[in-house]
């Protein structure tokens, strides 16, 4: 029995590793969606933003040789897409949901179109910090290879939670999401607040996309996101619009996404595709468990989903 054989312990370890790796895009997208929704706006287009972020980050890294410049560009692209969504939603008689779905299709389509040349070449990777160097077990070392973006995501969750509670800006974002009347009464411009919140939320999603193409899975292809941008919307509801809970929920989703490869690694090959569906099943189950026709979900911003 050599040091690398740790038997069934491999499953929880692989899920931990998966939670760290797979959850990062969820963290960024859900924080972006959380911020957007707290301002009273829904952005279903973050799936498209995620893809555009992934593509632009990959392309930038490839051309410039700097993956971190790619992350910056992805954030900027996300910012623009978010601002576009917010600007469209402010036009009279425009519906958040329809615009969001339109931008989702637009973002993914545009990413496929512009990203064609980047499918083959290999861009530089973001790299990882070896936080598992203390262990002699290779699986542990591998599981604890942590990308800096994961740590930034955690910091961002706490920073966002703090800002929403303690800063003027955060309170006004929340007020815009809770009561347009009250926001107007203190002289805040609801439109501008939502524009900024949606744009910054888009930037977060763009960074999530950069993680996908530049770290894990670490390449650019059209099946990269597999709906993570949409699942993040469900995740925000499950997290009751709280950034810290978004973080935990993202880790949970990441772990669920890692079930299937983890089981495979210990030799369970039956039902591989069934286990791959775990995050989607989880999404559905959470939606059913947390939604009820009799009461609205506690914590939901009051202006959210108001179709005007």
């Amino acid at each position, binding site marked *: 029995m050599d040091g690398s054989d740790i038997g069934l312990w491999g499953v929880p370890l692989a899920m931990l590793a998966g939670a760290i790796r797979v959850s990062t895009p969820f963290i960024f997208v859900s924080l972006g969606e959380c911020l957007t929704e707290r301002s009273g706006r829904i952005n279903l287009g973050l799936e498209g933003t995620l893809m555009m972020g992934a593509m632009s980050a990959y392309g930038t890294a490839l051309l410039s040789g700097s993956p971190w410049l790619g992350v910056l560009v992805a954030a900027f692209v996300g910012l623009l897409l978010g601002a576009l969504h917010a600007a469209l939603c402010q036009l009279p008689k425009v519906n958040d949901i329809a615009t969001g779905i339109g931008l989702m299709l637009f973002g993914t389509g545009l990413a496929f179109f512009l990203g064609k040349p980047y499918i083959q070449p290999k861009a530089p990777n973001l790299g990882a910090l070896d936080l598992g160097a203390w262990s002699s077990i290779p699986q542990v070392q591998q599981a604890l290879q942590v990308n800096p973006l994961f740590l930034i995501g955690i910091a961002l969750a706490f920073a966002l939670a703090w800002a929403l*509670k*303690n*800063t*003027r*800006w955060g*309170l*006004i974002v*929340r*007020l815009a999401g*809770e*009561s347009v*009347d*009250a926001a107007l*009464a*203190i*002289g805040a411009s609801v439109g501008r607040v939502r524009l900024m919140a949606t744009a910054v939320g888009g930037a977060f999603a763009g960074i999530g996309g950069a993680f996908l193409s530049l770290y894990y899975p670490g390449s650019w292809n059209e099946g990269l996101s597999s709906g993570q941008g949409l699942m993040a919307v469900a995740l925000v509801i499950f997290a009751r619009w709280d950034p810290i809970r978004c973080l935990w929920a993202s880790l949970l989703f990441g772990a669920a996404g890692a079930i299937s490869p983890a089981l495979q690694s210990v030799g369970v090959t039956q039902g591989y595709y069934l286990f791959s569906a775990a995050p989607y099943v989880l999404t559905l189950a959470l939606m059913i468990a947390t939604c009820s026709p009799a009461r609205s979900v*506690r*914590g*939901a*911003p*009051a202006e959210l989903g108001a179709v005007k």
Partner: protein
Amino acid sequence: MTAPSLELIGFTKRFGAMAALDDVSVKIEAGAFHALLGENGAGKSTLVKCAMGYYAADQGQILLNEREVTIAHPRQAHELGLGMVYQHFTLVPNMTVLENFVLSRGDLPAVIDWAAERRALKAFFETTPFTVPVDMAVADLAAGQKQKGEILRQLYLKRNLLILDEPTSVLTPDEADEVLTTLKKLTTDGLITIVTITHKFREVNTYCDAVTVLRRGQLIGTKPTRELDNDRMAEMMVGRRETRTVVERETRAPGKVVLKLEGLSVADNVGQRAIEELALEIRAGEIVGVAGVSGNGQRELVETLAGQRDHEAGRMLVHGEVYTATRPEMIRHKIACLPEEPLRNACVADMSVAENIALRSFDQPPSSPDGIRLRRSPMRETARKLIEAYKVKTPGPDAAIRGLSGGNVQRAVLARELSSEGDLLIVANPCFGLDFAAVAEIRARIVQARNRGAAVLLVSEDLDEILQLSDRIVVMFDGRLALQTDSASADVGAIGRAMAGH
């Protein structure tokens, strides 16, 4: 803080052709607890909204502490120390009391020092007669605490003239007493002046120094409360009425019981009891008028009967059978319903007039031979006949009903509901917002249905309408029947007192 005096002089406000206020003048002394009394639509809300700058009055002058001021915008009113507390809550439910108070101040630093703000608010609460939990989310507060929070916020913002719009309508009598007692103390201490809109005589008698009564936009008078008793106030509020203008009606003895409500209890949208163990019988060939100030459970009653709301306890019987407001039951028992705001409650706004008229019968012959296929031409034919019979003004049967005027929507729905010769007709505020001719015609149709032998439940905020049409009158107050009387022997004063909870 010292209480200011407020004088409103010669206020006139027209909405279209209707004068909501006609040359109304009120003087409110410094430190007074002043009541504005009147029926729905008397102009009380319009008057205070003009004073607060929500409406621009056509004419009118405001003196604050005997100096003339202009108030064109609510923010100007706030700067002058005028604050308003509404029937509905304006505190943001998903934020804590502290967050709500600090946010409404408007002058926030970039980063808020919550510890200091909390200390400041707690110190402020030391000086107020009642408090609310500082760190609790407003959504978790009981209705009474929310209303206290609304009032405290006005004080926190240094407003010293408070206008309360039916402040106790969401409170239990005990909560109302607690809030009003403490407010009363603030006025007697000379700290604030209060104007309160109310329908409740008990509160006026107990707490208010002076009463101003409005009726149909006219000032009836301002009197110190001690010079008034309930009868006098009721008379000022509802006036001396002509008991009956002419609507032809056959005198007939009522027939069998058609609708029977037994111990019916219904919750409102926030889960509080809107109707408490209501018992009521309506017989064939009689109109039972339900009078009352809006918000005493009438809306919930109509919604329950129309199948738009579930009841919590009790049961409804139609022709002696349990009725649960399903479509087959409505068809079997021939139940017709004309709810208030028919465009919203009884129509699909974007469908055509013909389709809306067919809503009750589209799945039965001749509109549908088998319940699956629809035949347009019989639908359109029926619609055309009814449009003519009920004089609905529409570009044609295929025009969207949204485009019709309020009276014509009302006529179209009435045509649909009455064409089935129903046994039970439920009508709510059928003439609200309609012109004189339409009112007369719709009332005549309702009486015709009664003459034909239908049982009619008429819910109305318009006391004249109730007096004019009903065979029997009941008054709803706080979800219960406060009074039942034959309309022939009805005492208007007693009805007015029952509407005000006496």
